[in-house]
């Protein structure tokens, strides 16, 4: 019990006593009683969750939940590494002059920082969510191709290691920025092995991503449970589907472009060499055809996270389900048609075409923000950890959107591009949002994965430290940029307020580091705590909450009828068709005599105590 337990009486129950609602746990436990197949008998969390127990087990596992956890842990390790590299950047910039690193090393540090964050942390965390959640949300036992899934995971791990090992290579790590423009990334300007390793690393992680995307699309197409039509899938799953399609379009182009770059570098090909029929503009087209969708490939899974969380903690259905699906599809489509807005300075692109498509993207994005707010509007909101971090996400996202509008105006853009204003902007939209939503996801699904809740009190500490630390670090970079501090420099003149603002930003970094402490304590405490949570600790909506926490091997011993996009909500309200979905009660009755372990729910809900016997203390 924490001080933040939601006030259930505040819930808009329509005059219904909260105790009269069906809880998933009762149904699951009831199944044990009635079942005579001997497969039940699980108490709360006392069962085998099917995760590997040995190192060999983890190295060879093909289970989607194990791999989902592995993806999450690995990408968090990369977040820590990318964050430490950011520490090097902030230490160097805390004062004018070159203190800690040479210019060459500084270039390597920000390149690998950006690359680790984008390629090895943010995107793979999306795959962690896809791995763990997609099968659970659609009622499937696993992804469609489990071994392919494990293969993708290992390619990602090896690719990541190779990128980091670049620092040990002769001449240091790649130092040409995360978008690797030739000729800077060519053999002439970057002859070192570190550059080759960077390219290899991204070819590998790109291939890994492509294969995962195929896996997710196949799973969603072929393995949905009966009743789970496309338009009943949770928005999270929809977003992961669209993300996967974008990966399928974008990543092979990147891998191909990198492969060509490697041929140029190693074997004297001239794809990007203007002196011999090639063109660096070709690289820019290929890269940004990947690079702009990449921003949404990073973002959409996290949009999905908050779309799952807002309705649960506002106790309302998601506002405008179809609109959200359509907005996601539109974002997916448009974001593949705007790439050259990153190339306006080359003077060789159709400015009008790309300015128009870019402006259009604001529409579906606005729809999303509108629907998120609509989902909370008039609800009875409670501010448990997942909700706090989701709101942190929303605030950061809107702030980043505002500076994005400023950047989109061509005259200002000319002044601000390649300045710290841009650094501030993309850390708001890409860094802050991802980190807030990431922790929202961890706090929200932790009870599902482990059967335990994380400490609310520590979460509150973490949230405020993160909020303050993030804004201290990045807000003043807007001023730095406005006053002309360029990005990608290890040194700056002690003019204007450059020193002051840089020092504030570096101080903010320390607060950010401090925000990790409560989180780590919460995790450690949770590992020592006993399993306490049932299947549905948040009273949530989607199918993953209909199985025990942690879920058994192959996920479901039992499925509720699926008649809307929130089957668990419908089950909870099955006897109150003025609130719940009447079709569900009907489907339930239809199961009589067909389904194992069937029992009449209505009787129990009329006020009779649950007919369960031993081993079922709530």
């Amino acid at each position, binding site marked *: 019990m924490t001080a933040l337990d939601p006030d259930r009486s505040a819930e808009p129950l329509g005059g219904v006593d909260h105790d009269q609602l069906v809880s998933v746990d009762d149904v699951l436990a009831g199944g044990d009683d009635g079942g005579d197949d001997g497969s039940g008998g699980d108490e709360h969390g006392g069962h085998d969750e099917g995760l590997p127990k040995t190192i060999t087990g983890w190295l060879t596992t093909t289970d989607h939940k194990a791999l989902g956890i592995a993806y999450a842990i690995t990408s968090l390790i990369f977040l820590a590494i990318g964050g430490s590299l950011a520490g090097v950047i902030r230490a160097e910039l805390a004062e004018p002059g070159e203190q800690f690193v040479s210019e060459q090393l500084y270039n390597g540090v920000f390149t690998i920082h950006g690359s680790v964050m984008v390629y090895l942390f943010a995107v793979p965390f999306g795959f962690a969510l896809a791995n763990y959640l997609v099968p659970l949300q659609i009622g499937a036992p696993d992804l469609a191709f489990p071994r392919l899934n494990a*293969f993708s995971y290992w390619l990602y791990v090896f690719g990541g290691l190779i990128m980091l090992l670049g620092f040990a290579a002769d001449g240091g790590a790649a130092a040409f920025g995360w978008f690797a423009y030739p000729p800077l990334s060519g053999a002439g300007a970057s002859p070192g092995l570190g550059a080759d390793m960077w390219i290899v690393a991204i070819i590998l992680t790109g291939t890994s991503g492509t294969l995962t995307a195929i896996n997710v699309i196949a799973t969603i*197409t072929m393995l949905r449970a009966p009743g789970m039509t496309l338009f009943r899938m949770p928005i999270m799953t929809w977003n992961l589907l669209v993300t996967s399609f974008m990966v399928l379009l974008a990543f092979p182009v990147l891998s191909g472009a990198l492969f060509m770059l490697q041929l140029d570098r190693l074997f004297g090909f001239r794809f990007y060499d203007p002196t011999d029929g090639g063109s660096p503009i070709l690289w820019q087209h290929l890269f940004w055809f990947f690079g702009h969708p990449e921003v949404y490939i990073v973002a959409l899974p996290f949009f999905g996270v908050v779309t799952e969380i807002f309705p649960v903690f506002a106790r309302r259905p998601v506002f405008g389900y179809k609109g959200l699906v359509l907005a996601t599809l539109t974002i997916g489509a448009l974001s593949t048609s705007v790439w050259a807005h990153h190339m306006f300075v080359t003077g060789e692109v159709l400015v009008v075409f790309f300015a128009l498509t870019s402006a259009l993207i604001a529409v579906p994005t606005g729809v999303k923000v509108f629907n998120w707010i609509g989902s909370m509007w008039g609800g009875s909101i409670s501010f448990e950890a997942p909700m706090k971090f989701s709101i942190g996400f929303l605030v950061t996202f809107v702030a980043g959107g505002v500076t994005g509008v400023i950047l989109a105006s061509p005259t200002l853009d000319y002044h601000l591009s390649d300045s710290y204003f841009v650094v501030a902007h993309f850390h708001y939209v890409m860094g802050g949002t991802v980190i807030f939503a990431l922790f929202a996801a961890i706090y929200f699904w932790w009870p599902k994965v482990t059967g335990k809740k994380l400490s609310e009190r520590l979460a509150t500490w973490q949230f405020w430290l993160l909020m303050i630390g993030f804004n201290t670090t990045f807000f003043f970079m807007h001023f730095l940029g406005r006053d002309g501090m360029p990005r990608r420099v290890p040194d700056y003149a002690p003019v204007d307020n450059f020193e002051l603002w840089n020092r504030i930003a570096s101080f903010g970094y320390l607060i950010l580091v401090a925000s990790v402490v409560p989180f780590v304590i919460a995790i450690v405490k949770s590992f020592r705590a006993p399993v306490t949570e049932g299947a549905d600790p948040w009273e949530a909506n989607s199918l993953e909450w209909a199985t025990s926490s942690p879920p058994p091997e192959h996920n479901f011993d039992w499925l509720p009828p699926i008649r809307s996009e929130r089957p668990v909500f419908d089950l909870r309200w099955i006897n109150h068709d003025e609130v719940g979905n009447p079709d569900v009660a009907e489907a339930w009755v239809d199961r009589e005599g067909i389904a194992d372990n069937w029992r009449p729910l209505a009787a129990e809900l009329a006020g009779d105590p649950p007919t369960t016997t031993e081993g079922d203390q709530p």
Partner: protein
Amino acid sequence: MKPETLLWAGVGTYFTVIGVTYMLVGGEPIGVALLLMATAIGGLIAGWAWDWGRKHGTRAEDRNDADVTDVQGVVGVYSTASLRPITMAIGVTAIVLGLALGSWMTIGGVAIVASQALLLVYDADT
């Protein structure tokens, strides 16, 4: 499969429209090619879904009123552990890294991948 077919056909149509538009307003050939490639990928999935639907008819998961009791049998057989994925990944990594480090590594990688692919055949039920 009908909703899936329509979904992906819609995706393919969008990229056709945008690709052709881009071409007509004078876009450069790389962009046109990339957009039409997107058409192809969307169309590929649509075609596959359409074909599957034609062969197998309506599935329970396409019907609004289906429930678990409407399907029988196993969804699929799932291996829970296999040594093949990690060894294959090592092989592929060696192949690509060998481009930079030397052909001996690529050759080693090819050997690993080939042997693992063979073993995969015997691996089918693990």
